């Protein structure tokens, strides 16, 4: 079975006044990676992108609604030619930041068969989700996603099938806790 390794990091969510940071080691991984994505969208960039989303209907409207109120989005994704190119220590350091108050891990999937580990963390502000982080780690792929601001994970997953995002058929949706 073809191994697919991905890690997505959503970075820099202020947690109880503490800003989540991506370990510096991750920013240097691009040089080792076969393919890498390094996206940082701050408030100004998101506002600029928002001006180019037509808010009436269609995919743009869905996107606009989804990112309304989001302060920043950080994505780091690396695909390597060979396994174990990223530091487990850096990954643990990144993961440890989500033990801060306000954050909770809602999903953790570990597959020994595929040597794959995925975690989803959310930050709650009252009843609202105020932050979302995804860590997807495989031997040859690492993806970290951090979204600072309100984000409905179910709506984010619903983007599949739009904008060229492949929809994964998976039957009934998993309900993510709202409270």
């Amino acid at each position: 079975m073809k191994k697919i390794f991905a890690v997505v990091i959503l970075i820099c969510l202020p947690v109880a006044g503490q800003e989540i940071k991506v370990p510096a080691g991750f920013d240097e991984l691009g040089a080792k990676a076969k393919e890498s994505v390094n996206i940082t969208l701050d408030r100004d960039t998101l506002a600029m992108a928002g001006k180019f989303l037509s808010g009436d209907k269609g995919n743009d409207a869905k996107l606009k609604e989804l990112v309304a109120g989001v302060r920043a989005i950080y994505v780091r994704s690396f695909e390597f030619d060979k396994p174990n190119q990223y530091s487990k220590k850096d990954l643990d350091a990144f993961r440890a930041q989500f033990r801060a108050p306000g954050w909770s891990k809602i999903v953790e999937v570990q597959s020994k068969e595929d040597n794959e580990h995925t975690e989803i963390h959310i930050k709650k502000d009252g009843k609202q989700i105020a932050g979302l982080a995804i860590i997807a780690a495989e031997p040859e792929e690492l993806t970290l996603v951090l979204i600072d601001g309100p984000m409905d994970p179910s709506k984010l997953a619903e983007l599949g099938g739009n904008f060229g995002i492949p929809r994964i058929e998976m039957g009934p949706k998993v309900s993510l806790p709202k409270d």
Partner: protein
Amino acid sequence: MSPLEDALREALARREPPAGFDQRLMSRIASEGDRSRPHNRHTRRWALAAAVLLAGLGLQQAHRQREIHRGEVAKQRLVTALEIASSKLQHAQKRVLEIADR
């Protein structure tokens, strides 16, 4: 002296200009100058205004093009970021469902 020489001498003889000729000449030159200066001034002003306007429009257009480009790039990066996030979420959901089905 031949009649031809007489005619030439008569034709080439020094004659004083009529009285007041130099004042009239200078006055006319001055008046021509007064008439042409405003015309030149206005032409220059319009040319300058047109040049400034064109330069301003050019700069505005260039700025607009840069903003459009930056906006399109920002939108594309947003879409890419959400594509990655969405695919990872879907993958996690799929895994959870697979585990739940066992």
